[in-house]
Structures are given as structure tokens and as C-alpha cells.
């Protein structure tokens, strides 16, 4: 199932040129750019692992693209996202986050229903391995 998380996720995957421009936009705004990766794309998993340190005092996105290429080389089979953190007063939060890499076989999510006391129903999203992997 195609994962849709963060910006641009309903569009076709961004090309490197497009990623470069987005990163340049982040840097021009003075945001710290982070590269993060994970093999657990569950929507509740907000703790992705960081690739290197946040990059802030760069003037050109080529430096980030270099790190991204390195990260893809090592973790090409995982989800990788780039986020831009705005540290200015009043914001102090992530302003943009978008996927830049996804595994060839994406997992899917199943809805689990649980009946508890008083006929209350609880729902949970469960991460399942890719269907294509087990035909």
C-alpha cells in the first residue's frame, strides 16, 4: 500500500531536482534540515531515526543531497523523510516533512477491532508486511 505521510505524499514521488528545490527552500528560511529513516512507518511512530545531525548553516542544498544519497545507499530499503525544523520563537516545530524514499515493497495497514466492556469498540491500526511479498 502506498504510504501517504507528510507533504506531497499524494503526488508522484519527488525527483531529486524537486527534492533539491524543497530543501533549498527550507535552508533559505533558516530551518534546520533533517534526514530521518525508519522501517516502521506506522502513523503513530513519530520517532524515526536520524541520519547524522540536523543541517542548518548550509547555504546550498547540495550538501543535504550528498547526505541523502549516502543515506539511500545504506538504507535504500527503508522509508526516508526530510523534515525542516523552524527554531524561531513561537514556532519551534517542524514546518515541513516529506518522504524521499520508500521501499520497493511497501507494507499495508490493517484495522483491528476489539470489543471491550459495555459493547465499547476499540480500533487499532496494525502494520502488516507487504502483500506482494507473500503471494
Amino acid at each position: 500500500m502506498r504510504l501517504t505521510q507528510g507533504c506531497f505524499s499524494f503526488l508522484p514521488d519527488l525527483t531529486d531536482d524537486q527534492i533539491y528545490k524543497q530543501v533549498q527552500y527550507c535552508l533559505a528560511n533558516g530551518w534546520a534540515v533533517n534526514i530521518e529513516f525508519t522501517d516502521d512507518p506506522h502513523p503513530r511512530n513519530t520517532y524515526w531515526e536520524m541520519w547524522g545531525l540536523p543541517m542548518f548553516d548550509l547555504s546550498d542544498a547540495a550538501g543535504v543531497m550528498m547526505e541523502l544519497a549516502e543515506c539511500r545507499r545504506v538504507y535504500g530499503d527503508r522509508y526516508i523523510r526530510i523534515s525542516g525544523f523552524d527554531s524561531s520563537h513561537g514556532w519551534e516545530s517542524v514546518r515541513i516533512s516529506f518522504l524521499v524514499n520508500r521501499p520497493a515493497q511497501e507494507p499495508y495497514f490493517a484495522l483491528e477491532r476489539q470489543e471491550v466492556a459495555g459493547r465499547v469498540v476499540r480500533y487499532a491500526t496494525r502494520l502488516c508486511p507487504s502483500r506482494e511479498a507473500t503471494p
Partner: protein
Amino acid sequence: MLDLQCANNSSLCGGAASPPSGFDLRKEAEAAGITETLRELEHELIGLKPVKSRVRQIASLLLIERIRQRAGLVSSPPTLHMSFTGNPGTGKTTVALRMAKILHGLGFVRRGQVISVTRDDLVGQYIGHTAPKTKEILKKAMGGVLFIDEAYYLHRPDNERDYGQEAIEILLQVMENQREDLVVILAGYGERMTNFFASNPGFRSRIAHHIEFPDYSEAELLLISELMLKERGYSFSAAAREAFVNYIALRMTQPFFSNARSIRNAVDRIRLRQADRLVSDLDRMLEIKDLETIDSSDVLASRVFSASPPGEGREPSERTS
């Protein structure tokens, strides 16, 4: 089938959109800001003939590349890594800073910032420290110019476990793979740079422009001193100018002469003496002209004139005045 044909004649397909028949070179050069940039370079830097001619060549290449691209011919971005060698004070650092502006103006580099580093900024202190440190600097320099001053310190031949080698390898890799993103300029004194390149042949071959900075002639040094004074809002009186010509001739024969840097120090000391001369007589009315003019006595008071012939037991240092 159509696609296949197009792929075979890709250069034709690309150029076929609007193939201009001719190009107005002057208009193209002005549009790219080349004439303006070169004129500035000519006026603001004295001497340095080989440097200027190389910059002009590079600028011309860019212009032709641009036109070729528009004409649909094959074009490839030129390699711009440079090495500046020359004696102390011949303007290597000044030109490197200027070079970033030029390259940016000509559209060779995207941002035009200069990151000036030495060994300490690239080489780490323990295992695993060097690579991130070097990469950090490289990332900062992307889109601009990385200026490595006294680059030969990166290589320590007496210690083969030195981390400098690791930094060199990372540098070489990025210099090769990301030529469009970054221009690396190495600078250092002539002889030691030669040794450095001899022990790192990879560096030598990856640098397209080896530029030798010649020593300044006496006439050029005089022009430089006048330019420096002008920048600071002073000027020589006729007698002072003559005295300074003698000063330059004498100073050049003395040890530890470092071209424009010595001249800059001399100019600063002359300003000190001028101020001292003015303050020593508190009872007179000062005119604007007095404040601006360097008198011959300011120059002649220098110890360069009173000194015994060079190399006879004087303390030879930059501090002597």
C-alpha cells in the same frame, strides 16, 4: 519508434526547438556580467598578470559554453578547482575571496560564499572524528568556494597514521564527484605546495588551474601602497612618495620581506607616525589637508632607513619599523 529516433539524434531534437543562427558575443558577454566583472578585477588588483589572464580565460570558456548549450552542441561544465602558489603577501587569499565573487557573478557557483579553512577545521583529533568534520565543512561550502589555506599541512609525511590523509581522501572524492557543486582552492607557499602535490598526485591531477603568484615589482608595490592609503583616506606628499620609493627598495633587500603584507604594515606604521607628529604639536590649528597628507618625515623615520646593511645583527622581523 519515434522515441527511438529522437534518442538517437538527441542533440538534434534538443536544438531543433529554436536554433538561433548567430550570436552577438558582445551582447552575450554583457548579459552575463563578464565585462563588468573583468573590469573590476583589472582595477582593484594591481599586477598579478597570470592570475588575471587565467580568470579571463575561464570567463571566456563559460561564455562559449553557454552559447554552445543554446546552440544545442555538446557542453560540459569545466573543472574549476585551483591551486594558488606564491610567496607570502602576493595576494593569494585576497584573490581567493575575490574569485568566489567572480565565479558567482559568472554563474559558475550557485551561492558564492567562501568557506576559508585550515588543517584544524578539516582534521579531527581522534579516530572517527575526521570524516564528519571534513564532511561538515564540505556541506557548508557546497554552492560556493572552499578555500584551504596552507593546504600542505593536511599531509604530514613524517606520520603515516596522521588523520590528514583521511581528510584528503574525502576531499578528493567530493572534488571529483561534485564538480558542479563546489570549487576548491588550495593555497600555499610555492615550494611546499610542490612537495605536497608530489606526495598526493591525485590532488595535482584533479586541479585544473595551477596559478603561480609572482612577486610584486617595486612599481607595483608603490601602486599598492597608494591604493591602501587611498582606501584609508590618506595620500603621500611628493617628498613622502619619493621617500617611500626608497623605503620599498631598501625593505625588499631585507630579510622577511613579504610583498604586499610588508607594505600594508609599513602603511599602518606610517599612519601611526603621522598621528604622532600631528599630536606632538598641540598648539596649532589643523587643516583637513594636514590630516590627509603623509609627510616625508613620517616615512623617513622608519628604522629601515637607519638600519645597517641587511643581515648584520639586526633583529629581522615584521615588527621592525
